[in-house]
């Protein structure tokens, strides 16, 4: 069986040309799509100079994109992060993956540099290059609104155009901004927006999703009374607060008594809230109020951490600024939180709004924060105050409250990311089984296994939220039916392991070493905000170091952090 979407479109921005060709079937059958394919393509272009303009960007889809199989329409955005210096992939929701599939494309490789800011539109049998004109440096929603044609649109904003290393990309009017500064990479290449026409082709699956749907309906996190189908990920605010993991004051505290002012029920006070779903997904985890998608938990909590007197209105406004500027709210908030600690003060809502704007346009005092917290603290000579791993600012889940998550932060190939290890799922959400969040025993192997599975799921383009209920056991037969690729869940996990090995190998070539798998010192020396029922002590460094050692042994890393599995990478398609 030939998979319907199997072509790679290569865009050369230097010459303003595009070429389309089917991917080598051996390569596609091995790396499948999504993150696997992205990493494989990027491996051929490791940027040995610090100028990230030379490195390509890739957009890839999973092999079931556009089929209507719930949760298989994630887009993978991949590149070399100017913020972290690592290889970097992001799994993004929205309409772009099915749009690519409708054009029979499994990926787009963006190379070269446009001589002037440009816009690229992909249609059936045609790729159109045009000048961005007044849309360069426009707000992201303005770009989407003012493009002459319709389609799924990926944009950057003023933050990327000013070269901020924490600038991301936005798809259509979605809430999320990608992390890792890949928006800046796109701006450096002179691409302001990429639009994909929704083609006529459809490749619907012929059923077989009952097992999946049953699990979604039974999942408290997805479709229970407090599920994301109602609250979006804002349903996490109360739980993370009660677990004493909700950071503020640059992670000096992990609880605040007014958290209910910005929890799910607070945001959903508006009875006119509706919900948007990704293609084919029954969950619908994007709550929309007054025509605007509500913030995610991570954005809302990161912003709330800056506000002495948070309100949903203020948080929404600040989140909106980040979306419009194309600024990663987690990184932006992390940088401001650090500044607040260094300066010994809290900022008002107005000041924070001003700082966000200054970060986006590199002006005023906010301009010094535009490249993220790690570079800022080096300038301030206070590196210990950067709450980041490998240069990526930590999202608002305090690691002292979930030690497996702490380990995952350290080992993540892209830096301070909570989604690669998925420790939140078992340590906090208790799925598929609960684990002791204050104990590192067994967490090394668990981290390796879950990282592999996440890499595999990202390769299939599967939504990480749905993996709190379903697993590769349910998706593997659907993969076979839709694409002809017969893979067991264990086969896919093995592929995940290879993907992680490839990422670690790339990072090694880029200068990363085992010592980079570490958390900021604060988490080993300062307690979190415990309560009468339980304390939140610092993580024990000796135990953490042992867990890292176990992780390296299980992942078969040598003393330099190179996976043994990397030896065979050259022999793979």
């Amino acid at each position, binding site marked *: 069986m030939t998979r319907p979407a199997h072509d790679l479109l290569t865009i050369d921005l230097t010459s303003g040309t595009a070429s389309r060709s089917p991917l080598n079937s051996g390569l596609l059958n091995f790396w499948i799509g999504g993150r696997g394919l992205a990493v494989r393509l990027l491996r051929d272009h490791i940027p040995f100079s610090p100028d990230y303009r030379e490195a390509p960007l890739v957009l890839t889809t999973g092999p079931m994109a556009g089929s209507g199989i719930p949760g298989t329409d994630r887009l993978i955005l991949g590149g070399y992060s100017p913020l972290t210096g690592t290889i970097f992939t992001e799994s993004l929701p929205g309409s772009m993956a099915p749009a690519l599939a409708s054009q029979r494309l499994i990926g787009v490789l963006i190379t070269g540099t446009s001589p002037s800011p440009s816009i690229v539109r992909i249609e059936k049998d045609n790729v159109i290059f045009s000048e961005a004109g007044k849309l360069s440096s426009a707000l992201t929603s303005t770009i989407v609104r003012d493009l002459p044609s319709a389609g799924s649109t990926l944009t950057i904003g003023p933050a990327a155009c000013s070269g901020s290393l924490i600038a991301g990309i936005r798809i259509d009017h979605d809430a999320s901004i990608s992390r890792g500064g890949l928006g800046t990479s796109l701006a450096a290449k002179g691409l302001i927006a990429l639009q994909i026409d929704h083609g006529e082709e459809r490749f619907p699956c012929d059923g077989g999703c009952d*097992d999946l749907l*049953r*699990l*979604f*309906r*039974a*999942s*408290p*996190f997805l*479709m*229970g*009374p*407090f*599920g994301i*189908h109602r*609250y979006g990920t*804002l*349903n*996490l*605010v*109360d*739980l993370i*607060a*009660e677990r004493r993991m909700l950071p503020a004051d640059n992670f000096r505290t992990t609880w605040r008594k007014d958290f*209910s002012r910005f*929890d*799910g*029920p607070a945001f959903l006070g508006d009875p006119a809230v509706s919900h948007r779903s990704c293609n084919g997904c029954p969950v619908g985890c994007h709550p929309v109020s007054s025509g605007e998608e509500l913030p995610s938990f991570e954005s809302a909590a990161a912003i709330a951490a800056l506000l002495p007197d948070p309100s949903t209105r203020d948080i929404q406004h600040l989140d909106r600024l980040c979306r419009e500027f194309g600024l990663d709210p987690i990184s932006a908030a992390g940088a401001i939180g650090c500044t607040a600690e260094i300066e010994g003060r809290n900022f008002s809502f107005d000041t924070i709004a001003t700082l966000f704007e200054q970060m986006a346009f590199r002006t005023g005092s906010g301009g010094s924060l535009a490249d993220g917290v790690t570079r800022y603290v080096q300038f301030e000579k206070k590196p210990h105050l950067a709450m980041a791993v490998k240069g990526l600012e930590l999202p608002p889940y305090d690691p002292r409250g979930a030690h497996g998550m702490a380990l995952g932060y350290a080992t993540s190939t892209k830096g301070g990311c909570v989604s690669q290890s998925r420790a939140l799922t*078992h340590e*906090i*959400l*208790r*799925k*598929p*089984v*609960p*684990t002791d969040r204050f104990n590192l*025993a*067994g967490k*090394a*192997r*668990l981290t390796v*296994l*879950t990282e*592999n*599975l996440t890499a595999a799921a990202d390769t299939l383009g599967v939504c990480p939220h749905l993996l709190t209920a379903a697993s590769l*056991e*349910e998706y*593997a037969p659907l993969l076979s039916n839709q694409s002809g690729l017969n893979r*067991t*869940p*264990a*086969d896919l*996990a*093995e592929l995940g*392991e290879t993907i992680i090995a490839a990422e670690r190998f790339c990072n090694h070539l880029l200068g990363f070493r085992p010592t980079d798998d570490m958390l900021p010192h604060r988490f080993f020396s300062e307690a979190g905000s415990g309560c009468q029922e339980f304390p939140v002590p610092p993580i024990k460094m000796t135990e953490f170091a042992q867990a890292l050692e*176990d992780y390296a*042994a*299980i992942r078969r890393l040598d003393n330099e952090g190179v996976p043994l599995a990397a030896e065979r990478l050259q022999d793979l398609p």
Partner: protein
Amino acid sequence: MKTLLEAFRRKLERDRSILPEQTTLAAANREIELLGDTTNAPLAKTIMGALGSAGLIIAPPSLPFLELLPQRYCPVPATLKPRDSETRLFLHEIPVLPNDAPIDTIIGLLKARKGVLVEKIGIIAAGVFTLEQAYINFSSIFHALFIAYLVDLLQRGPLLPQEPVLFSEFRTRWLRPVNKSDFIFAPSIDNTETLRSEMIATGRYTVESGLVDSFFGNISALQDGVLHISQTAASLDELAGQIDPVPLDLSSTAGITASSELAAHRAVVDATGARTVLHAHPRFSVVASLLCERTDCKGEDCWRSCPHERSILGVPVISGETGAGGLATTLPRAMQTSPLALVYGHGTFATGSTGFSEPFQAMAEFENLCREHYLNSLDERWPAMAAGD
């Protein structure tokens, strides 16, 4: 790791689902550690190495007739799809292999499914992330096979020469009435502290009396507008620290970690005014729910929607799956007229107005009645089973 292995072996022994001297447990962190029967140690290590999993259990089920199931359906290799809810939601199917199946075949199936049944070896259940998962998968498979065998036995009678003797041993040595009298309940639960300690005690009683394996089942109690409910994936016999207070006014979403049956519990207390709700998977009750006598039914999905009104021994039998749009819709209606309800392929829900004594006693009594009813029906329909020959 050894402590963990021993803890789960104790659980399996308490569940009476294994023959301890023939059971092998394996768990891995940096290395693989084993406990139990060394005969299967090489097999365990090979499987763990191939799967990269964190836990594995290899054990013949304590009830030997369970291994006869494949022979009753067709020659092995085969795939069983028992009709209980644990199979339907989690296991999906149980592959079955002959004793001489190549190890690669066993590994290949374990790469795709949570466990397999291999003749003369037993149930091999893997846990991708933890040893606890292997325990849960083993228990679910044991439960599913138990249910499937009893249903099929009543419907088609003994098909193999050794079945009457094996079943007779099961009756006389393994089977026992649910103990409902040795447990002490508080006369009322009028404060949160008492309420929670009663939940913890009742959860333990429910597991100890065999009404449910520890991973399944759930329990709740209402106090001052807050529904205290066991957390999802909580062990019902170890509920301390695993109870969520869920305000019924939806003012907090911390209840994401509450039982996946939260919606059903809430709907039942709303509709009936009950203060306590207990849910378990008693096996003879589940078997009874699956033995529908209708032959002219046009219903296509008995788990989700039954077009008829059914009852067994005066207890309503209803359809409805776990979660959104399922039990929370069908259960409250049934429980408005009965403090006990049986869910097709799933288990029983029981309510109480003052404490947990009522629902526990009702559930235990009903399970005993279902057991008696089953055995009487079996003896009547298939006299060879009564005689044990």
